[in-house]
């Protein structure tokens, strides 16, 4: 963990503070704090069962965290004082000097996407399989179209305002289909697409909601090397051209190390490392968590762990745990 101020700390789009999530007696996430920098691709990695998806579910409102604050800032240079003021006011979100702040832990899941602008994909793809690819992307623009259709009544009468909005929504969908290479499959049911195309469609669908932060749960799982490379290009395009910050969970280290501006490593619900790809790759605690450690390194790692993680009593238990996981 670098003590110096990193790029992502200067202007975070998402700031998670002291996040704790307990399921009965099980503490899935324990006092976790991290920042997602504006315009960065941030990766959340860790061994299986480390609590990565739980963090995602807290950020996107599918779980209500037991403790902690998750604040999203839209607009540049919003300081912590503004967030503090909003927290005290009891509001879910509010406008501040340079933009607006959203306290995600207070908002229901659909509002987080609708109002705050956080879109997500799922580890096991959740497309509308019986609907066409184009329809999937139109459903994602539901709230905009709903307002344009005068909550159905104007749309039922076929007023021109709604027809224009419907055309615009279709154009937007077609733009994303072009970028994800799916245009020739636009009229096919989503369930008929091959796996890699379904992954891309889910990302396109999330982007059609017009997010500020895109959360991807294992976007490269099940992709072949060529598709992974295409995914990298797509994510860079989303970051650079649409000014969208990306938070992703990934096991494919090829993808993670190549495109991430910032990596956070979780193990047993705690952050064990936080930094750039080079910093994390050489962090002994990360190596220990992923691979276990050699006997000669046990002492050194034990000291590190004792300093960083109070609960890790001996490296041998960590090593055993790693062996049982692999």
């Amino acid at each position: 963990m670098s003590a110096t101020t990193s790029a992502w700390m200067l202007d975070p789009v998402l700031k998670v503070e002291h996040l704790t999530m307990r399921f009965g007696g099980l503490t899935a996430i324990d006092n976790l704090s991290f920042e997602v920098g504006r315009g960065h691709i941030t990766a959340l990695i860790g061994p299986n069962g480390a609590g990565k998806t739980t963090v995602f579910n807290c950020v996107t409102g599918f779980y209500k965290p037991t403790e902690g604050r998750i604040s999203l800032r839209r607009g540049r240079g919003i300081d912590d004082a503004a967030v503090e003021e909003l927290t005290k006011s009891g509001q879910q979100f509010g406008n501040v000097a340079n933009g607006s702040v959203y306290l995600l832990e207070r908002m229901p899941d659909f509002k987080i996407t609708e109002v705050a602008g956080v879109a997500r994909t799922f580890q096991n793809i959740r497309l509308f399989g019986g609907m066409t690819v184009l329809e999937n992307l139109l459903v994602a623009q539901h709230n905009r179209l709903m307002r344009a259709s005068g909550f159905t009544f104007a749309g039922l009468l076929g007023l021109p305002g709604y027809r224009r909005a419907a055309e615009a929504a279709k154009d937007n969908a077609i733009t994303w289909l072009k970028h994800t290479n799916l245009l020739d499959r636009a009229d096919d049911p989503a369930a008929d697409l091959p796996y890699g195309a379904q992954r891309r469609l889910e990302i396109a669908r999330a982007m059609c909601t017009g997010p500020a932060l895109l959360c991807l749960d294992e976007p490269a799982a099940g992709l072949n090397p060529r598709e992974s490379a295409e995914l990298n290009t797509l994510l860079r395009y989303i970051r650079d051209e649409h000014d969208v910050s990306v938070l992703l969970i990934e096991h494919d280290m090829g993808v993670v190390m190549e495109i991430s501006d910032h990596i956070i490593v979780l193990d047993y619900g705690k952050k064990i490392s936080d930094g750039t790809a080079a910093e994390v790759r050489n962090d002994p605690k990360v190596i220990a968590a992923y691979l276990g450690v050699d006997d000669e390194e046990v002492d050194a790692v034990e000291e590190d762990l004792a300093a960083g993680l109070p609960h890790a009593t001996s490296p041998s238990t960590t090593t055993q745990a790693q062996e049982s996981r692999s």
Partner: protein
Amino acid sequence: MSAITSGISQTPEGAERELENQRDAARGEPPYTPAPSADSRLAASLKDAAMTAAVVAVLTVFFFAFRTDIAVGGLNLTFRWPLWLSWVAIAFAGRFLISYFLFRAPERAVAGVSKSTSVRPAKRFSAGKIFGIVMLLAALALPFILNTLLPSHNRYLLDLAILILTYVMLGWGLNIVVGLAGLLDLGYVAFYAVGAYSFALLAQNFELGFWVCLPMAGFFAAMWGIVLGFPVLRLRGDYLAIVTLAFGEIIRVVLLNWTDFTGGPNGLLGIPKPTLFGLEFKSGAGSFAEATGIPYSPIQRFIFLYYIILALALLTNFITLRLRKLPIGRAWEALREDEIACRSLGINTTNVKLSAFATGAMFGGFAGSFFATRQGFISPESFTFIESAIILAIVVLGGLGSQVGVVIASVVMIGGIELLRNLGFLHALGFDPTEYRMLIFGLAMIAIMVWKPRGLVSSRSPSAIYKEKKKIGADLVAQGEGH
């Protein structure tokens, strides 16, 4: 198959064919089987027919071959071998014909059909569209067709048509909830009852007419739809079915026991008839006959009722088709496909569910209001669970989400039962169809579910098209909660 392939792999050609089969199998294609020759087709069909005949012979021997009548001093046993043999022969011949011409018919080679069965490109003027237009014209002209062709049965058949159209409308209303939003509703008859009682009570207490009460009845039913919607928001599957079932019964039991307000089991009498711009369908002053100069005939009222329900049903269809292309309709279908994905896209699933329940209930309310004015008398007897079951059966048999399917299923289910009542000429053959009415009906339902498990019209047509409209096969479409 393995025995055959090992047999033919002795020769080089056989080995090559085996290799091809393996390659096809790796690509997920069914193994290649040579088209059966006419000889083997005949033999196989005869074998099928013999087996079927044997099964029928065993199963029916006690029903057809032996007959006991109560006689003085015991039972009188008679043998009816000719009857039994003729049924066995019918089974043999029927199965042979089906086997020879359908099941074992040589596959017609159609390019592209075998590759993707789930996606079929639809033609611009598809058979469905033409069929729909013909059906619509026939429905519009029906009273006059009946008048010229069958003047003696005119009134009865028109009444039957009104009944069928009422069920078509109810089916279309329920189709929004079950077919589009995928929420299983076993208590749909409750909204039918709310619509009927709303109209009857408003008419009796405030002396309002049909046309004023119709929108109010729809509104009240929609409100009750929301009332039902709230407690079931978080329920899925069987639990959703049970609670909606209970809701239907609660409404009926309240209507039955709140005697002061609803008349209890005696029901409500003297519900006004609908008027055409204030003109009543009767003889005398202020009537339709007097105003137009057309001589009065009692059939005019039925023709008027027929056109009212036809207009209401077409309105339901028009609005449903329109809603499907609007964001709300797409959200209903998305809810049926995946509720969690809906929430992740910022869709308020509470509103989506409540709007589906309310819209479906509103059409149920309209239909109920029409039912009340047609009957002139309503009681809780008319709104039992069996009505919900029939409406749901129409939707399921027709194919979830399909508008045409609902029409076909209504005609078959409601019209079919009535038709069996009237096949008097079969009496001459010693077969009384009225006795076997329900049996035949049950068999027909089983047959549809065996051959068309997702209903008569099971494909879904997309609500938005980029280039080409392709039908989506039922195997890809989710069924939602409670199926």
